[in-house]
């Protein structure tokens, strides 16, 4: 499948269906993007599991760190990989040994490994690359509009008041979830295949 641009419905169906997310590379340092993506997703009601061998014995927002995916000891719906592109493949290989398999493998903003994606997809796992679930969740719920970001969605329904632990509706009308002139050019500028 095309990983340059994603249809909003693809992202929406993933974020609406997964309940547990193991975050590989989660950091306890509160200025790292992985820390605040972890915190946001926990606040939005996802069951978060921090995976980082360097922090075993510690907790991230009351969730104990585990060293690896196989140490989680229970099924997880999604694996969110907060590692650079060159470190993706071993994580995907490990994910493929889990039973049951995760439903989704998500690679963070800036991370992309097409070979790893192909391998995961061959096993029936949905893949998202070079995106942030916090940004996508905030965008599809329009929560991110507070920062002037184009949610690319519309709604004539009264907006909810987000509270702690609340899952926001992501089912707004999409304005342009897939390719745009700008997104195609952005991919090209990064030297990614289009």
């Amino acid at each position: 499948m095309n990983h340059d641009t994603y249809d909003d419905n693809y992202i929406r169906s993933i974020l609406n269906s997964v309940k547990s997310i193991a975050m590989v590379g989660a950091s306890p340092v509160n200025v790292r993007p992985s820390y605040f993506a972890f915190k946001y997703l926990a606040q939005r009601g996802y069951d978060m599991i921090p995976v980082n061998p360097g922090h075993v014995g510690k907790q991230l927002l009351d969730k104990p760190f585990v060293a690896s995916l196989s140490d989680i000891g229970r099924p997880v719906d999604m694996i969110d990989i907060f590692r650079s592109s060159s470190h993706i493949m071993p994580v995907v290989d490990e994910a493929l040994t889990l039973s049951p398999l995760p439903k989704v493998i998500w690679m963070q903003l800036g991370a992309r490994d097409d070979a790893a994606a192909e391998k995961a997809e061959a096993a029936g796992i949905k893949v998202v690359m070079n995106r942030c679930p916090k940004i996508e969740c905030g965008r599809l719920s329009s929560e991110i509009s507070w920062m002037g970001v184009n949610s690319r969605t519309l709604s004539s329904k009264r907006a909810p008041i987000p509270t702690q632990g609340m899952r926001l509706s992501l089912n707004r009308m999409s304005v342009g979830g897939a390719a745009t002139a700008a997104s195609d050019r952005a991919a090209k500028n990064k030297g990614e295949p289009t």
Partner: protein
Amino acid sequence: MTDRLPGFSTLAVHAGAQPDPTTGARVTPIYQTTSFVFNDADHAASLFGLQAFGNIYTRIGNPTTAVLEERMAALEGGTAALAVASGHAAQVVVLQQLLMPGDEFIAARKLYGGSINQFTHAFKSFGWNVAWADPDDIGSFERAVTPRTKAIFIESIANPAGSITDIEAIAEVARKAGVPLIVDNTLATPYLIRPIDHGADIVVHSLTKFLGGHGNSLGGIIVDAGTFDWSKDNKYPMLNEPRPEYHGIRIQETFGNFAFAIACRVLGLRDLGPALSPFNAFMILTGIETLPLRMQKHCENAKAVAEFLAGHPAVASVNYAGLASDRYNKLARKYAPKGAGAVFTFSLRGGYDAGVSLVSNLKLFSHLANVGDTRSLVIHPASTTHSQLDDDAKVRSGAGPDVVRLSIGIEDKEDLIADLEQALT
């Protein structure tokens, strides 16, 4: 199911806005407040650390203004936007993210006189050096590129003569030079031209003009196309290096394809301070709802007035790209097929004195220093908007002493033509 894409007019009414969460108010309320309460200390810290979505203080963001920002990002096809107090403020904030003292940017010679002045004098004191290029000679942009060039700046429809810029050709120069193309889209509005579709990386506007459209509120906006790779060669340290004021966050790494808009907000607006009033944001939002309808009427009227002037014996020449005989007509048909805008110039056979007399004889056109109002406007650029330029620069920017600039409103075109006719005789 594939997502259906709403059209421009639907976005002009709806993008960014939804009924108010607490009251159900359908029109976006004016959140006329300086500050917003935090839930607790942790929430406050998350907001200040750029870790959570939410409001802190109206200098940094405001819910009314955020609707305007998202609407403009949607209309321009960008990833995010930042509203500021004026078009001039937008230019300062954009270039502050891109240039360090000693750096350069290339700007088209045909620009709003205020921009020429800002670039030449005010920016010089920041150590930002402008190199001028001729939008009618693409090679002049290529020749102006140096290792210190950090951006290229053009207007889509250029003030004052309404000439059309070949955005795609200049975007190609910017791409080869590895710098972003900034397009001031004020005179076109996204209804007529969407510069991002033609290769722009950043779009700026004076919202004061056609977007607000009613001559009642100042405002400016910066739209991030999300197309530029800020991490390349560490050319843009504001975006690429850890920010000490945010505990070492790297803006481009954290915010991906809307990093530029965030940098403008948290490093530009937050520290320089040119915030837009929520009341102005509300007025401009109301204006944008009717942008497509108004632009149709503006363009229809402008074409009729330009045709009338072109046939008048007292008129030496008319510069309106919508006229088939105009040198920019081919570019207008490519970039602005719905209309060539409503700001243009003409010159009188009687020269400077005839221009002064025309302005004083007009009864319906208002003599003032703005464009893009519902009302028709007239000005003599050489003695006003472009008066700070030397004589040579005036002529090169299309504001010679015999030139009169019109901004055509949405009145009945017969009345505008009758007013010009009586004033010319």
